[in-house]
């Protein structure tokens, strides 16, 4: 932000709406940036006010990841697109074993979007970033004409640092490894679907959106031989495990009755004809660890508030077909296949 005389711009009218001038780079745009974005995301690097942020760099290797967020509705039980966009990119860096350091955020706003909603979203981003200890150090805003967007889209990029000697990868799962999940599956996806479909539950399903780097740090500090970590977001647990199985050229066998699933999420999935294995999570961790360290890893996860309901859900084995299979609750065996297309509710 460049230095500007105090009181030069009128206070932003939060009863107003985004118009094309907010993205035009003029005075209105500067006012939006200063009074809304800079105020909510405030930190020393953003305050440098130049085209790029100059950042200190601890020793180690850089890890970088980017993620675009287009969720609808923008506000949902347990969160909103703002905190979701912070957690999303932080988690992508964290599952590499890295300490997330900085975030950048790009906003695409639709003409007519209420400024009060934008303030709420950016406020939520600021809170999430402060809670995570990862500042938003750079940003950009564009405004598109009405009908060319859906309120607000946010792209975030995270940078982190990975200590030497630590190498986690989806390609490192091996026969004999144990597969763990840090808690109940499907909470985020069903919180969104319940909003969209107007499913009224006595206690609403709450999104699990959260930053996972604290949980991951505790797991790594436990000394367990961690081979691969991933956050099972879009496509759910099933997709994540298929990715790891394919990358590592191994098979997996899960136990359905070991996978944590909330009653209300299970019920909503039944109603909509969805399989919770394919429903998105935004604050869950899949960990593939050496078989002998399964209990140690489980204890480390359960000791953290985000991992209280962690469970060992299966094991890795040799399989030239790289199939993920599951022993079902009644005792049969099925494949847990890649998702075909979108997960559509069955029609009868």
């Amino acid at each position, binding site marked *: 932000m460049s230095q500007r005389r105090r009181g030069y711009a009128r206070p932003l009218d939060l009863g107003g709406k985004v118009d094309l001038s907010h993205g035009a780079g003029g005075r209105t745009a500067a006012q939006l940036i200063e009074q809304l974005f800079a105020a909510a995301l405030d930190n020393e690097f953003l305050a440098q006010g130049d085209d790029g942020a100059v950042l200190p760099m601890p020793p180690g290797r850089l890890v970088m990841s980017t993620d675009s967020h287009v969720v609808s509705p923008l506000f949902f039980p347990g969160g909103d697109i703002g905190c979701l966009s912070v957690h999303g990119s932080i988690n992508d860096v964290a599952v590499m074993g890295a300490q997330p350091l900085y975030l950048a955020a790009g906003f695409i706003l639709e003409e007519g979007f209420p400024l009060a909603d934008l303030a709420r979203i950016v406020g939520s981003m600021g809170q999430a970033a402060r809670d995570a200890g990862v500042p938003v150090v750079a940003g950009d805003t564009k405004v598109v004409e009405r009908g060319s967007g859906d309120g607000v889209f946010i792209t975030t990029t995270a940078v982190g640092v990975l200590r030497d000697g630590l190498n986690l990868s989806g390609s490192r799962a091996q026969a004999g490894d144990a597969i763990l999940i840090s808690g109940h599956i499907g909470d985020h996806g069903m919180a969104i679907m319940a909003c969209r*479909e107007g499913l009224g539950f006595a206690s609403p399903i709450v999104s699990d959106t959260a930053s996972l780097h604290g949980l991951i740090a505790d797991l790594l500090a436990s000394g367990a031989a961690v081979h691969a970590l991933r956050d099972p977001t879009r496509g759910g647990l099933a997709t994540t495990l298929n990715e790891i199985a394919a990358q590592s050229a191994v098979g997996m066998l899960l136990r359905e*009755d070991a996978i944590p699933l909330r*009653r209300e999420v*299970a*019920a909503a999935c*039944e109603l909509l004809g969805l399989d919770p294995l394919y429903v998105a999570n935004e604050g869950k961790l899949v960990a593939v660890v050496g078989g002998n360290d399964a209990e140690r890893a489980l204890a480390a996860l359960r000791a953290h508030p985000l991992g209280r309901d962690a469970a060992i859900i299966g094991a890795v084995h040799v399989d030239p*077909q790289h*199939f993920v*299979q599951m*022993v*079902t*609750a*009644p*005792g*049969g*065996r*099925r*494949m847990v*296949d890649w998702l*075909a*297309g979108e997960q*559509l*509710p*069955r*029609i*009868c």
Partner: protein
Amino acid sequence: MKYVDEFRDGELARGLARRIAAAARAGRRYSFMEFCGGHTHAISRYGLADLLPPQLRMIHGPGCPVCVLPIGRVDLAIALAAERGVILASYGDTLRIPASGGLSLLKAKAAGADVRMIYSSAEALALARDNPGREVVFFAIGFETTTPPTAVVIREAARLGLDNFSVLCCHVLTPSAIGHILSSPEVRSLGSVPIDGFVGPAHVSTVIGSRPYEYFAEEYRKPVVIAGFEPLDLLQAILMLVEQVNFGVARVENQFARAVTREGNLKAQDLVAEVFELRREFEWRGLGTVPYSALQIRARYARFDAERRFALAYRPVADHKACECGAILRGLKAPWDCKVFGTACTPETPLGSCMVSSEGACAAHYSYGRFRAVA
């Protein structure tokens, strides 16, 4: 979850499996057809084949609405959306059915046709109310379970006096299809499809009741056990079928007594009878043209009948040459007997309709059971 967990209990399932194994006589083969796609899906989804003795085989029936819809009917819907400028609304899986010229409703949508995916018939009606200047056509498919909701919206459209809403009716009838299978030469004389009994549909039977199946038990001497969609429902129904076969009886039994009565849902039946009448004949994929096997909209609701409103002429189209959906739907072949299964035909690129719906025999085997083909 109450009323669900009880029916998926592993201990009870293993207990039922042991009883089935004990009841199934050595040296005798048992072949049962589960008519309904919901059962096909449940059998694969829960891996129930692993719980059944080797001499017992389940044959997947044609009770999957997406699977039995012939290409010609999908072509009609695509033509309406692509050439007549209507808003075409239908249920999710319907959009993916392969039609003529490499098209599907989903591809027509990508090419600019106004195709909307809906979850309920009421959404189609809402589209018509919200778009008074546009023609809205509801592409209605399904067995007796989905027919009453279609009847409701047609009656509602009449009450509201909507003049931009119509239905492309493709509703089909379960008993006609079962009768057609039982009277086919493969079952009756050739013996190429041995059927010792039927697992009767769950949701369909809540509407039509158990009475319509009595004819099959009597006339064809085939036991029918109506079953719910949960794994324990299915295992119990299979045990009941094995016992009927062992005793040499053929009765209609109702395992799904918590939802199905002998008479069914009379209110729904009245509603359907008010809006629909029997169609003289209807082409089914796999079964061919079956007389009196489907419904059409009655004359008094003619203005809501898309076939009349748009003067549509049905043109039958042959299936893809390599596709074995027809034989699979008749129980003559299994998915893995098809040359293109899992190669050219996958859930992402279905050649045949059985690979489209998760209730289709091919999609169910591909998604849940194909590790068995490899092992």
